[in-house]
């Protein structure tokens, strides 16, 4: 891939060797340098993928060889036994179902609430607006375990421990600040003229929001939904505090953590469960990572 040197605008200029160093994002790298870069990147990729491959390896081992110092990724006697046990003999599907029900409901509600709030922040200069925006940022600073103390005690007093009620409401609300920032940032980039044109054609303000702005903001809405979905799907701490010891209500992070208990670890089952839970989320994430990151930096830079 030897693209012509970008400095060809000046025909007398010939880049000398020492100038193509690592610090320069060079387009005229020497083959040797390219080789080194590929080697370094391949090593980095191995480090980044390795723990996942180990989990995969353990999930494929037969039950009598779980404890082994074997380092092969696909063991010679690979079996799907662990997958069969976790799917059909453990309440794994229950955990996943519980997580899915909670997660989809809270992500949807969270997006709706955040979208209306972001619309207000984006289109009106109402009193208290800047205080509200700063407050939304400040909530990101609060450590989770700090809010856990009062929420737990209040939940005990309100009889909400051991039910989904507190958990669902909490998931809806905790995702709001971040979602509002992302959506407001996106709404700001959509020209107001479009809504005004719709108003002239006889739409009300809300109809303009619903029929003009929201359809135009589908990518941002999808990303916000996805972000809410993933943070609720992966949440452990609040679920542990709020659900107590209710076996039938457990979400998958609680269940998997229990499999990797303190005294007896069911490695095979833990690994098989992890792989099953991981696949859909990882695919979703990789698919949407580009948008997710631009949303993140948009909110960050503007803050």
């Amino acid at each position, binding site marked *: 891939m030897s693209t012509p040197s970008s400095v060809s605008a000046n025909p007398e200029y010939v880049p000398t060797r020492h100038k193509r160093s690592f610090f320069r994002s060079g387009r005229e790298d020497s083959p040797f340098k390219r080789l080194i870069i590929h080697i370094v990147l391949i090593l980095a*990729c191995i480090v980044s993928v390795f723990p996942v491959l180990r989990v995969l390896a353990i999930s494929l081992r037969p039950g009598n060889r779980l404890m082994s110092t074997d380092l092969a990724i696909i063991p010679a006697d690979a079996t799907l036994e662990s997958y069969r046990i976790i799917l059909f003999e453990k309440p794994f599907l229950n955990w996943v179902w519980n997580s899915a029900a909670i997660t989809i409901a809270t992500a949807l509600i969270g997006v709706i609430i955040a979208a209306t709030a972001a619309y207000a922040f984006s289109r009106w200069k109402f009193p208290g607006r800047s205080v509200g925006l700063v407050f939304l940022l400040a909530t990101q600073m609060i450590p989770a375990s700090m809010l856990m103390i009062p929420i737990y005690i209040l939940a005990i007093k309100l009889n909400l421990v051991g039910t989904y009620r507190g958990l669902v409401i909490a998931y809806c609300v905790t995702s709001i600040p971040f979602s509002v920032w992302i959506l407001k940032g996106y709404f700001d980039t959509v020209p107001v003229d479009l809504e005004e044109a719709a108003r002239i054609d006889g739409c009300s303000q809300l109809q303009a929001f619903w029929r003009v702005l929201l359809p135009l903001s589908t990518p941002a809405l999808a990303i916000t939904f996805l972000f809410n979905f993933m943070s609720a799907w992966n949440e452990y701490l609040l679920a542990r505090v709020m659900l107590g010891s209710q076996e039938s209500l457990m979400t998958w992070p609680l269940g998997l953590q229990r499999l990797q208990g303190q005294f007896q670890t069911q490695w095979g089952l833990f690994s098989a469960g992890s792989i099953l839970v991981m696949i859909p989320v990882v695919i979703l994430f990789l698919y949407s990572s580009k948008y997710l990151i631009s949303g993140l930096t948009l909110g960050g830079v503007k803050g």
Partner: protein
Amino acid sequence: MITSEVILKSLSEVGSTVLMILAGTVVVEALLYLLLVKWLKYKYALPFMLLAPAAIGLIALVIYPLIWELRLSFTNMSLKAFKNPQFIGFKNYVRVFTEPVLKQKMFFPLLGQTVLWTVINITFHVGGGLFLAMLLNRNMRGRGIYRTLLILPWAIPQVIAVLAWRSEFNFTYGYFNIILTRLGLQPVQWMTDPTANFIAMCLTNIWLGIPFMSVTLLGGLQSISQEYYEAAEMDGANGWQQFKNITMPLLQPVITPAILLGTFWTFNNFNVPFFINQNELESSDIMVTGLFRAAFQYNRYGFSAAFAFVIFALLLIFTIFYTRYTSSLKGAYES
């Protein structure tokens, strides 16, 4: 196995909560409509109605609990005194600094450990992330594949990633000790030796945090116009000079918020310290896990509330200084 009983139970629990939220919203909006639109004819009636659900949610689940926690921090509430806690003034705040906050650990060593944890992690995140971003910021074969594979640690659910790492630190079957023994070295007690446990935590979190930094910084690098480098090259600037005088200043608007965000995430990181030592070693705790332990293992609620506000104050001071400092830097660049 999945049973229909459980399906119905969680469905009805979730469903009834959703209905409750909907009904509450309808009632609130109707009241606001009557009050703001019909009665006061307020100019900003619509935005306030749009904001109401989010505002009520945040007031109920963030502001109210925080005020309640502030009140709690002045009482002696614990598991023993759960029903009738007594008001004890600033005693809890004095205790945070004078008595062990956990069983053995005092406040300042814990703070030192947390700062060390944050500095180590952020240094490696930014350094490693910048390194990878600069390698990726060029025309090359397989760039998309590298990018996808390198982002993987960020995509995996954190609980799974950390628990997987924990099993790699197992004394007999973990990867690290297998390699160490094959190299003829002594295996390390990752789970019981405090220093080794802390290193294990750092390794895990560095692995977890680099993808976010490298992807964010790659975005920043790509937005720097190639012309700057071409001009610098004509003036005879070497690679290091270009890095120092072009890349770093122009990357500033991306690096600053990324570091701020990363610092909060690392300082407040709960999953990694909590799952790596599974709540066994007090010596590996950082602030937020220590707080969780003080509250939910030792059940000293009033004390933990005071402890929480001390941590919050530290974060607030840090934010103010950091934003002041970086905005003054920005001013220096512009002038």
